[in-house]
């Protein structure tokens, strides 16, 4: 069962990376316009 001593921190770190990613997305305003984001992905003229 000693393997758990390594696995648990590894699993937690991966989870924390996910959480940090979500918080970053929230902070940088990626959830401000969820409907628009769904439509923007379809338009091809915004490559400037």
């Amino acid at each position: 069962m000693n393997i758990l001593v390594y696995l648990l921190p590894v699993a937690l770190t991966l989870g924390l990376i996910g959480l940090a990613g979500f918080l970053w997305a929230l902070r940088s305003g990626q959830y401000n316009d969820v409907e628009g984001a769904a439509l923007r992905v379809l338009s091809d003229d915004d490559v400037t």
Partner: protein
Amino acid sequence: MSVTMPETVDLSLYAKAGVGGTCDMDLAVEGITCGACIGRIENAVRALPGVTEARLNYTNRRLHVAWADGALEPAAIVRALADNGYRGHPFVPMRAEQEEAAEARRLTRCMAVAGFATMNVMLLSVSVWSGNVSDITPETRDFFHWASALIALPAAAYAGRPFFASAWQALRARSLNMNVPISLGVILALGMSIVETANHAEHAYFDSALMLLFFLLVGRALDHAMRRKTRAVAGNLAALRAGTAHRFAGDELVTVPVAALNSGDRLLVKPGERVPADGIVQGGTSEIDDSLITGETARRKVSAGATIYAGSLNYSGALTLKVTATGGTALIDEIETLLEKAAGAKSRAMRLADRAARFYAPVVHTAAALTLAGWLLAGASAHDAIIIAIAVLIITCPCALALAIPAVQVVASGALFRAGILLNAGDAIERLAEVDTVVFDKTGTLTLPEPHLLNAAAVDPALLQRAARLALTSRHPLAMAVAREVTLRVPFDGAVEEPGEGVRAVVDGTEARLGSAAFCGMPQQAPSDDAGVSTICFRHGAATASFAVSQKLRADAVAVVAALRQRGLDIHILSGDREAAVAPVAQALGITQWRGGLKPADKIAAIEAMKAQGRRVLMVGDGLNDAPALAAAHVSLSPIAAADMTQAQADAVFLGERLGPVTDAIAIARRARRLMMENLWIAAVYNAIAVPIAIAGLVTPLIAAVAMSGSSILVTVNALRASRGAGERP
């Protein structure tokens, strides 16, 4: 279109200086229909010289533009949008909206942290539970418990702050709210789990504490998201309602937003426009429709020296107006005094959730104390007795109870939103459900705010259409009433407006005229006995028609009043208009309890008298004279066309030309209230089953987790039924 001098438009009020020599502005954009609009709008604005950024938020229909300071006249942005078929209305974001956005982000962060921690701790807990019935070693279990503590303690300290802060506030004010038992439960569960872990015990409650926080935060975050959505729509509507005024700068006229007006400014009010600000007439004569102010539909003749109010409709002539300071006139002062009195007298109805908390918390805390005492008397060790008492607190921790009301609230305000009703006050749903009397204002509430044609059916349709197309050229309110009947929105070429007389154009080789009887060469008609009805004439060759124009009942007013009566509500009309004008409306709607000619103070007195009889009054009104009555009533609604001051008093605002939202609001609110009570009962039944098990000392963390999530899901699913009320049309 008549040819006028292009006026300078000054929108600098809305431009904010940003960092590094840039300016930026927010606009609410009307006319967005599909995803392609995003690119069209952004490209059109980016093509303007000096623009550095243009970003459209499709969700809330708002455009953010930034440009190098001085490189661009802000009005050019609005023009660029107009050229592409969109209407842009600049606005300054309201502080309340920004604060709410910050609060929503904070709640989402807390929810994310609680969710992450719950999932990880639950993973460890499930391992312990399955290990406890098989072959887990005590060392591994302790390791898992300490790992859980490591995740749970910081996460709860962060995610629990909204609850802890509110509970602390309530306790300092020597009162109780739902957050007090929640905070107590979380802190005790965590504290006990640490002590138990240190004692190598089998059970720890880290997962229960976190799951409780996560469920409650999901409920609160959804509640906030719904409120933000409503606020954004209300903000956009306010932006597109915000009028402009023609201000004299020397001899020139500059169009400025109403918000930029100062006391002492001189304005020009053209015929067909609403008066932008309170003031005193300095020059010109005209007729003014004061119905949005006093409810009076008969027009008032004004000339130099007369006082006119923001929101009145200018009929016949151009006026020069000197803006007076707000609150400088007798009527506004009277209304403000009445508003203060009404607000002071209003006993804030206690919210259902707080009432439940006030009843619930002492019961639970007494039960826990009795459990502790009982086990001690029965000879249990102090350690065991405390553990069982805390288990009682954890299992009763009001997860279902705390979700019972907010969950319904979220679903019901979503249903109201779809029915075109925007809530201003959070507890309006509960108060709407209790209503037994509905008081309507007449002008602008039962009737449409703009004048309409009364005898459209009596006129030859082809002739009516010609008159209506001709009327498109005019800005006169009577002509605009005729123009509302048009099916083909194309004005006649070469149509000319003769100020004060009418419009004329050559149609099919013959001249057509729309205007006064004299202008059309028709005999002067005897003035109608109803002072609120005006006549406008039309001649095309030999064919003539005369149109009666007046305030008209909203199309579904009769059906709505009937539906309300069917629901057992008592219906009254309290109007500021003459009795002669109120009587026919009351008769058409079959309302026997009506009064006319009321001053704002009379309306309050009438509502106070109803309250004294123990009635719960819903006041529906739009005029400035209704504002104090709205504040005095148990709950209040306003149509979106209402005066600004009135809308600020209303608990909810409804959109559109129909009166139907009034029935919808009551139907949805009553359904929501019923579901809230059902949910409270579900929570009570849950406690009635769970508490004896806890008192008997049989609760394990597994039972706590299943019971808590089970009851929360039950309550939430039940709340989803609140969205069904919107579909039932009267």
